[in-house]
């Protein structure tokens, strides 16, 4: 049987090379994340949070070091294999939503299913939109939604293929506090339902929704601790 380790990182370094300028971003990262965890990656701007998340989510590759995903070493995986993992095992939520313009919310949410060739994509997309409380916005275009609604649509898109992990990079960064709270509620609820959530934020309030907090500074993990008394209730009721 698969171990409870979902992600295991050993001695990971990341540097960017552009025009002979080398930017070293991550140093000696060692990290294990288990199934069902809710981890917040915290740190000041430029500390490397997003970079780490991109590597964990197979949007980017480490410069050196090892990344075991579900106990498999991933350095030999080719681009198509990584695309497949992103499609089926991972959902992304970004600060700026990245919804396709002039495309309905429903079509946006269906997008991952298009690439997995899923059947009943319509029904699955509607179900995902219902889970984020957007069942009344199916035929809307992204520019007709509020920021909070856009982000919930993006969460529905991340959910639609029923992935194991959801990565969220500053999901509340562009939202007012009420919409932000709604988004965090949804993430908490998803975690309660068993999904592994990895959240990137630089706000303590937001990070407090997680069960574990990783602190990054200048590309190094300087702190890694469990949060016990969470500020939110267990019921996960959506605030409308």
């Amino acid at each position: 049987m698969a171990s409870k380790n979902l992600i295991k990182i050993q001695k990971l370094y990341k540097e960017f090379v552009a025009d002979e300028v080398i930017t070293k971003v991550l140093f000696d990262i060692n990290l294990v994340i288990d199934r069902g965890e809710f981890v917040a990656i915290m740190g000041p701007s430029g500390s490397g949070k997003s970079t780490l998340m991109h590597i964990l989510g197979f949007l980017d590759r480490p410069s050196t070091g090892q990344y075991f995903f579900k106990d498999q070493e991933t350095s030999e995986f080719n681009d198509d294999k990584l695309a497949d993992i992103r499609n089926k095992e991972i959902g992304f939520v970004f600060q700026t939503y990245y919804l396709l313009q002039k495309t309905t919310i429903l079509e946006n949410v269906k997008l991952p299913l298009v690439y997995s060739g899923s059947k009943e994509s319509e029904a699955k997309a509607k179900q995902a939109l219902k889970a984020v409380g957007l069942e009344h916005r199916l035929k809307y275009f992204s520019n007709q939604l509020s920021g909070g609604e856009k982000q919930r649509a993006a969460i529905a898109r991340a959910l639609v293929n029923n992935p194991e992990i959801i990565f969220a990079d500053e999901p509340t960064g562009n939202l007012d506090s009420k919409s932000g709270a709604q988004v965090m509620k949804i993430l908490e609820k998803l975690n309660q339902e068993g999904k592994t959530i990895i959240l990137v934020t630089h706000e303590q309030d937001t990070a407090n929704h997680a069960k574990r907090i990783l602190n990054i500074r200048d590309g190094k993990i300087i702190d890694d601790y469990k949060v016990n008394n969470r500020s939110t209730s267990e019921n996960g009721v959506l605030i409308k």
Partner: protein
Amino acid sequence: MNFKGIINLSLIGLKTNKTRSALTMLGIIIGIGAVIVIMSVGAGAQSLILDQVQKVGTNLIGIMPGAPSEEGPPATAFGITVTTLKYEDGLAVAREVPEISAAASFVRGIETVSWQNQKKDTTFVGTTASYIEVEDTEVELGHFFSEQEEKSVIRVAALGYQLAQELFGQADPIGQKVKIRRESFEVIGVMKERGSVGFESVDDQIFIPLKTAQKLLLGINHVSVIRAKVKDNENIDAIIPAVKQIIRDRHGIRNSSEDDFDVRNQAEALAMLTTITNALNYFLAAMAAISLIVGGIGIMNIMYVTVSERYQEIGLRKAVGAKKNNLLSQFLIEAIIVTLLGGIIGIIGGALVSGSVALGANYLGYNWAFIITPFSIIIAVSVAAAIGLIFGYFPARKAAKLDPITALRYE
């Protein structure tokens, strides 16, 4: 991922940028439209040329003065005057070659023809009585001059149909005196209407006896061409050597390389014209093909811009699991849809233009056929699709090869 899904994605991509898609299409519309117009108008012009030549008659042999030149036009076509061909040569050919039913000699010039105060600059044709049979025509009023009259310097004339109308209007021309230059001629006949023959309107010409034209108006005693009519069902090519031999004997020529005349077959002229017009058509089609390539490069340009503008979309698609091939086919199919659609619009537009040209030409009285072959449509459509494929490939490959995170971070 299935094919229908990809087509859908491509369509959405195109719809998202309607203006740009339309502009991209324009190059192809113009290119394909030009190909269709050129091929159709070329074929129409060819049909017109061949029709004109056929009207002259394909059972005619032309005897021209001057040494024969292999494929090209006769020397006289370049304005060189050769005086070796005579009226008697025509008579001899008609008399001695049994397969030839008649031969007519011709000289011509341009003069002012007048009646009372009506004037017209036109072509006078000095010819023989056999003109009627050789040209397969007849008189509408009166009569044509006789074999007797063609030998004497007699001042009679037959008017082309239109010339008679212009000079006389409602009046009866027969018996009236018209002037060519300052010489007076009695009108003995009016020819029936024929339209244009061999690109010249014979209806506004005036016909006078050969000798009269030679002595009175031109001061020469050679003829510029002899046309001989071959009896039906005779093999023209088989007769030509006999015709040549007769003239050689008359001119005292021993060796065919010393020929001072040339004998041509109208059918040959037809074949030559077909070759020339075909070459012209291919040349024009090549020009149109170049315009298509330019259109294709336009597509490539715009697609490169499209790809750069859509970095975030490409990044997002990759983030949610699009593989290289998915993006490659999405962008390729976008290009092919644009070019195919442009191709179809171009075909319709081209057909409309060539149809109007044909309609206009027919209205002006030319026998211009409206021809669009399935072949040209197949060519146009496959060229359009191929252009989409070829010029769409490189931008599409660029999109497919992008790093997901590079594309996402792009601003």
